[in-house]
């Protein structure tokens, strides 16, 4: 059971007879390194009869069969990739909790970076536009005429000379 909002639980519990834990003592492989591989692979594989549970978490009989299958393949010397490929060939892409990047999942993988990049670009251009607009306004209202500039220079010179002498 992996949900925290109780609301749905009532509906979903019907699917799962009990809230027990997953990996059973008798499934564990003798070699700790192989067992660790089996565990990390199990976390990437979906228990197909459950709600969004990995076979590592699920107590459904099917999940147990899959866990044993994963361990069998590992014991037979398959690499992680081969185990995954074997399971996908047998059960379809649905078994993968992290879908592969392909045409139909392209949007899934692309939307997060696109939102980030798009948002960043929008901010960048928005900021530039606003700054330009602001600069334009300022430029228009604070443009000095040549006479004003000449007067300003005179004033500055008049103020600077006593300081220099003093």
């Amino acid at each position, binding site marked *: 059971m992996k949900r925290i909002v109780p609301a749905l639980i009532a509906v979903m519990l019907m699917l799962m007879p009990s809230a027990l834990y997953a990996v059973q003592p008798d499934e564990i492989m003798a070699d700790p390194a192989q067992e660790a591989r089996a565990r990390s692979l199990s976390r990437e594989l979906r228990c197909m009869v459950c709600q969004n549970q990995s076979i590592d978490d699920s107590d459904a009989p099917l999940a147990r069969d899959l866990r044993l299958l994963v361990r069998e393949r590992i014991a037979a010397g398959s690499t992680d990739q081969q185990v995954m490929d074997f399971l996908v060939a047998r059960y379809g*892409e649905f078994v993968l909790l992290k879908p592969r990047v392909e045409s139909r999942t392209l949007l899934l993988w692309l939307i997060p970076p696109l939102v980030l990049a798009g948002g960043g670009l929008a901010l960048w251009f928005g*900021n530039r536009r606003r700054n330009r607009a602001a600069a334009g306004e300022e430029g228009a209202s604070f443009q000095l005429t040549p006479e004003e500039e000449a007067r300003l220079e005179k004033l500055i010179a008049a103020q600077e000379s006593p300081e220099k002498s003093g």
Partner: protein
Amino acid sequence: MIAEAGHYALVLALVLALIQSVVPVIGARLRDPALMNVARSTALTQFAFTAASFAALTWLHVTSDFSVANVFENSHSLKPMIYKLTGVWGNHEGSMLLWVLILALFGALVAAFGNNLPRSLRALVLAVQGWIGAAFYLFILATSNPFARIANPPMEGRDLNPILQDIGLAIHPPMLYLGYVGFSISFSFAVAALIEGRIDAAWARWVRPWTLTAWIFLTLGIAMGSYWAYYELGWGGWWFWDPVENASLMPWLAGTALLHSAVVMEKRDALKIWTVLLAILTFSLSLLGTFLVRSGVLTSVHTFASDPSRGVFILMILCLFIGGSLALYAWRATTLKQGGLFAPISREGALVLNNLLLTTACATVFVGTLYPLALEVLTGDKISVGAPFFNLTFAPLFLPLMIAVPFGPLLAWKRGDIVGASQRLTAAGILALVTMAVLWAWTKGGGAFAPLMIGIAVFVVFGALTDIVERTQLFRAPLSTSLHRARGLPRSTWGSAFAHAGLGIALIGIVCETTWNSESIASMQPKDVVTVGGYQVRLDDVTQQQGPNYREALSHFTVMLDGKTIGILSPSKRNFATRDMSTTEAALLTRGASQIYISLGDSHADGSVAVRIYHKPMVLLIWFGPVLMAFGGLLSLTDRRLRVGAPKPAKVAKKAGALQAAE
């Protein structure tokens, strides 16, 4: 009789909500104070009727009136009283009733305490609340009547799902709903502002306390749900990226972004259009969460299609409100004036970055949750999107956010000084680097990831403290001066420091738990000893006993450290005959922030029992962080400027009048 009264009260609440939807809008249009004030009285009485309806359902559950279908399906006469109470909202109909109760409560609060709002704004806000309320009252009355009777009342009920018979769940849904539904106020304010076509810094100040309140409850609700899953589900996981969890996380992410952008709007009159959009999106995501959880669409697209009455109804509400508000936004947002220029490196710039990352994170969760559904509906292909996807996409978005968090409060408004901010963060940075080095050496080079993450978390925590240290001139001015300054700091400054520190602390917990968690899965006989995380755990005995509405296998474990007993743990496995279901009651031993966690599995004929024992280092920090965030939110909520609120023209006028009279 009670059931019929409750039903009738709900119908009256619907009628009041309908009046509240229409009359104040006309009043605001005609500038007629009497019509506008109708909103206030309808909001208050509507709450009273919904409360009466809820009380009626509670009474039916407490007295175990099995002639009511809802009680029959979810209660049992032997169920402990506390779960008879919590069973009221432990089912679809009751939880929807709780939903509208909270909606009506928030409406009534605005009506009662919104005296400092301009009259037309208050009328419009309450009218929008009325629209939402009317839609959901209709939904309950049309598809989910909790008061339906059974023709031939049975003697005994079917009992509440045992996994829900837990105190954590007694408080979790109301908390979550207070958060979800609380965002409806920000939504109503946004829609009202769009209708009025006027929005300013004062608007942000009015919206902020409501958003903050909702955010605090949502934060606590999510944390509590996570802790509940941790100890009740029996394998020590605390976050599963389940669609139902995601449904609560999305409004949280959007709401957090909203809190931050509202600050910019309040202080600098900038980001107005964006803040209004965020307010709309946050509540839309709350509605989406309600739809996902309530319609059954998550269980399977096919269950949804086979019994569509409820789902389609909520989907219609969803489309109406989200579509309507976004259309209104598209139409009116351009009339809102943008103000307040700022350089990219500034407090505003930092808050914009915060918003960008939080919104992207929210979009990621959104896509991951809905993509499989959409793909199945469109093409019939089934794919799974689970924890590995979210871990891979969500974490990289949160990392830059974590690094940026300490800089934000140290930058000045309008134009900040990044070099100056970095200099002030030197101490926090050094502490973070030292932590990384020490941890890396201590784990003997066992992977750089965990030390790096914890280093960043330490940077966040001390970065948050740096802001306080800077403002109080601690270590530079005499202590008494610093204390005086600390008292004088705005509460919201303390609030954000606590909340940011909480973020770092939660990250420490998450990294420690996921990296250094150790477990033992074994079949144990009494007197067997296993070693987990440096502790020796011995199974003493397993006995059978009878509880009020279950039988349980109760075991005792002795936990030892270096041969010395440090605790006895008694996990059990309960069997509920009424539903033929069992639950594991894990036992926890807390050592500092770390926990030893034992849960029982099946017993075997030879007297052995399957046992799972975990040592979870620093695991409590995962929930202590959010509690600290919520506490920060609470501090911020008590900030003087929110209590004082915007100027009250009526009082000023009165005072002026009094002064004139005195003269």
